[in-house]
């Protein structure tokens, strides 16, 4: 048995997962969700902006909220300064006189405490969160509100894109976020959502209060809340055209730190308090497909990377050995005719290409569904070239953190 065969089950599962997403996108519930019109209901809404040292972006975030297309008497903006040590407090004070804005200063206690502080001071029917590094499009709230026409829906998520991607890494993340738009849209139609991201997710306030508000959630309070909502039997919807743009890490180091937090939070939540959801018949898509495949994708990401590394090292060593003593002018150049005969096609490689092409298709679909601004072409290129090489680093880091019980700070 060749070593490549170890990868076959993982590639087969990846292909199955992407096929499932594509089929689900074509199913009636997803088509209906895409055709959903704006609700005639106008519930009162509070948007909480938790801030910790966000002096550079909080004003723009607050301004984007004030430009939302929603009746002013029904929309309240709550800026929560979670004990910032920079000039966030002063920056917030620019909005102190605005009738729609309420400002809260508190001691630093973490994002979940800032959210709870905001929830505590409002009696709005829907409560949303917008991270202080994110900006919503004016019609985003109307799109979100439509999701709550169904009384069993306790939360709704938006369509996130990267805010003005500048470097290749941010373009790669933009493609990844477009992939996320497709996934959340498909998952929502079969009840498979397990995270309500910080940028512009909304909740029924009475459900939040019933469930006891936000918790620390292993530094992923949004995921922990979503899992708790699902465990309680409520639904989570998605508004694929509720466009929201967020700032993303610009360096590999900061990206790996952020994703380590996300993945370790996922593992700690899902393998800990919410293990009961895995395989749960009551939560069909979530329990039988989404969570098991998410766990499997972490394992396969690490294993495939290790396998790739091993095969590369083995082949490189063999090539160096064979070429030792031969002049570099010969050994460094490729030899042989350029001919279809030498096409390096094998089952492993072709299946991997199909998986990649399906991923690129799902990214493009996400961009089209959300109608997000910007060009995705650079994102597709950088995703193809970089994503598979970078992801294993945070997967390995997060998995080892969980296995060794290591806890890191929010920005470490």
């Amino acid at each position: 048995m060749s070593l490549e065969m170890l990868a076959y089950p993982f590639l087969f599962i990846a292909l199955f997962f992407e096929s499932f997403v594509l089929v689900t996108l074509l199913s009636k519930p997803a088509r209906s969700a895409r055709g959903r019109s704006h609700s005639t209901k106008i519930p009162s809404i509070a948007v909480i902006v938790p801030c910790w040292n966000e002096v550079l972006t909080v004003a723009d975030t607050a301004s984007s909220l004030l430009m939302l297309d929603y009746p002013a008497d029904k929309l309240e903006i709550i800026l929560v300064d979670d004990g910032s040590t920079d000039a966030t407090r002063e920056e917030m004070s620019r909005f102190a006189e605005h009738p729609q804005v309420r400002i809260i200063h508190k001691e630093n206690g973490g994002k979940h405490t800032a959210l709870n502080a905001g929830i505590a001071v409002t009696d709005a029917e829907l409560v949303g969160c917008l991270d202080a590094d994110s900006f919503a499009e004016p019609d985003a709230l109307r799109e979100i509100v439509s999701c709550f026409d169904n009384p069993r829906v306790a939360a709704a998520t938006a369509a996130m894109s990267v805010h003005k991607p500048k470097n290749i890494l941010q373009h790669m993340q933009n493609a990844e976020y477009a992939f996320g738009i497709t996934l959340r849209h498909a998952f929502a139609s079969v009840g498979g959502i397990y995270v309500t991201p910080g940028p512009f997710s909304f909740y029924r306030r009475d459900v939040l209060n019933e469930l006891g508000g936000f918790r620390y959630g292993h530094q992923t309070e949004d995921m922990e809340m979503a899992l708790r909502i699902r465990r309680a039997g409520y639904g989570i919807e998605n508004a694929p055209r509720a466009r929201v743009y967020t700032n993303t890490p610009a360096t590999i180091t900061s990206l790996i730190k952020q994703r380590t937090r996300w993945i370790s939070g996922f593992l700690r939540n899902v393998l800990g308090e919410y293990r009961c959801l895995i395989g749960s018949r009551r939560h069909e898509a979530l329990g039988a497909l989404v969570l098991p495949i998410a766990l499997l994708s972490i394992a396969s990401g690490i294993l495939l990377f290790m396998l790739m590394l091993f095969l590369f090292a083995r082949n490189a060593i063999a090539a160096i050995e064979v070429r030792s003593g031969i002049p570099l002018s010969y050994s460094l150049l490729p030899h042989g005719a350029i001919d279809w005969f030498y096409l390096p096609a094998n089952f492993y490689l072709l299946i991997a290409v199909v998986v990649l092409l399906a991923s690129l298709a799902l990214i493009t679909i996400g961009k089209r569904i959300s109608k997000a601004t910007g060009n995705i072409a650079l994102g597709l290129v950088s995703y193809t070239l970089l994503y598979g090489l970078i992801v294993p680093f945070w997967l390995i880091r997060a998995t080892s953190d969980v296995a060794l019980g290591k806890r890191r700070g929010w920005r470490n």
Partner: protein
Amino acid sequence: MSLVARNALIALFITIALAGTVAYAINYLNSARVAELSTIEEQLSIDSLSLETQFSLLESAPCDSNASSVTLTTELADFGNRLLYAENQLGSGNSQVVRLKERYSLLEIRDYLITKRLSEACGTKPITVLYFYSNEGDCNDCDKAGYALSYLRDTYPALRVYSFDYNLDLGALKTFIAVTKVKDTFPAFIINDKHFYGFTSLADLEKQFPKGALSTTTPKL
């Protein structure tokens, strides 16, 4: 059936269909490779026979003819490279690969004999290397030796390299091995009738060649 179960079932069918299509495409490509090799092999057989016939027709003055096995040897080398690639893709136990290797070995022996006859008739001294390797796990240096010979062949076009799988079950090859008295110690070389075993480095291999043999000018055949 629930929507999730239905979608999962459809997705499973799509996955199986895609995997099946990929497997079919790979199989088709490999069949096309074997077909290509068969075509080349047939052409080489004709070329080889043509050369032999020309040689016989002009027995009285073979050196005046246009008969030259240089082109044939180059084509043989290309065929050998393709065969090696196909062997890596399909496995050395593949029956079609084994059959083509047998035909390849026969063509090599024929070309070697023609070259020898021409050199005797014309008084030329071509440099020929008979290289015997083994695929049965008893030759650690065969890959290195093969690459070094490729380098020498590409660098010195006048060099004629014939490589043989020592363990190939082919009567003519067994006779050839018996006639050349090459031992089963690998890699084994016969450079202009001189036996040499093992491979340490390119420099050591080059020392086994006659003086001045490794020059980039093509000697008259």
